[in-house]
């Protein structure tokens, strides 16, 4: 039995060593100006963030292979339908490395979101993305007010509340 304790002790030591802060954590962007970007969209359009100044923009990063992203699409569509006339815009930035997968996905799940493509991750890098999906709520002055990591159905109402709040500011 003593051996088991040695093993567990050693495992814990090695495990804790992984907590050593040897990589800089990506800084939290809330409160800063949303980094401007200009990305290709559907139908040969170009999507430029600054064009949406004066609107509340939900900048969402997603990919066709990400299950929670798939669950977030119907919700984002609903937000756009409910609050689009109150000044909400949704820009869904696709991160697929193979565009054909993104195209197939969009055909399968028709939506009214504004789609942009960032396969090289240049914009994702600037937004310090920690995982997919991630969405940033940008207010009418171009400031990031909220970051939402992941997508969970039970958080949806909460998130909707925040959107409504920012819309009336």
């Amino acid at each position, binding site marked *: 039995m003593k051996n088991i304790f040695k093993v567990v002790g*050693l495992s814990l*030591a*090695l495990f804790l*060593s*992984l907590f*050593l802060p*040897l*990589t800089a954590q990506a800084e939290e962007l809330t409160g800063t100006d949303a980094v401007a970007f200009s990305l290709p969209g559907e139908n040969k359009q170009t999507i430029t963030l600054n064009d949406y100044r004066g609107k509340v923009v939900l900048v969402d*990063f997603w*990919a066709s*292979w*990400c*299950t*929670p*992203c798939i669950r977030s699409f119907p919700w984002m569509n609903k937000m756009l339908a409910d609050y689009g006339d109150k000044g909400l815009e949704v820009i869904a930035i696709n*991160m*697929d*490395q*193979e565009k054909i*997968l993104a195209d197939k996905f969009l055909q399968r799940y028709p939506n009214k979101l504004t789609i942009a493509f960032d396969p090289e*991750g240049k914009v*994702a*890098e600037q937004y310090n*993305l*920690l*995982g*997919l*999906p991630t969405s940033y709520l940008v207010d009418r002055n171009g400031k990031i007010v909220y970051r939402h*990591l*992941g*997508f*969970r159905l039970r958080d949806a109402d909460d998130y909707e509340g925040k959107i409504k709040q920012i819309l009336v500011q």
Partner: protein
Amino acid sequence: MKLTVLMILILGLSGCTSLGVKPWQRDLLAQPVMQLAENPIENGFDDHTYFSKEGASGGGSYAGGGCGCN
């Protein structure tokens, strides 16, 4: 001796921090065929056969990898 191995392992693990991909580059890793336990029933059959017919046992585990979402 054990302490040396431990130090090497810790330094090695710290080296792990430089390996890896960005969160949006996990498209291939997210595919079912790249999961560590892609067919648990098949793993169960194999484990059962080899544990019954051979002297050694165990070793595998299946956490990690995948899409890293949520």
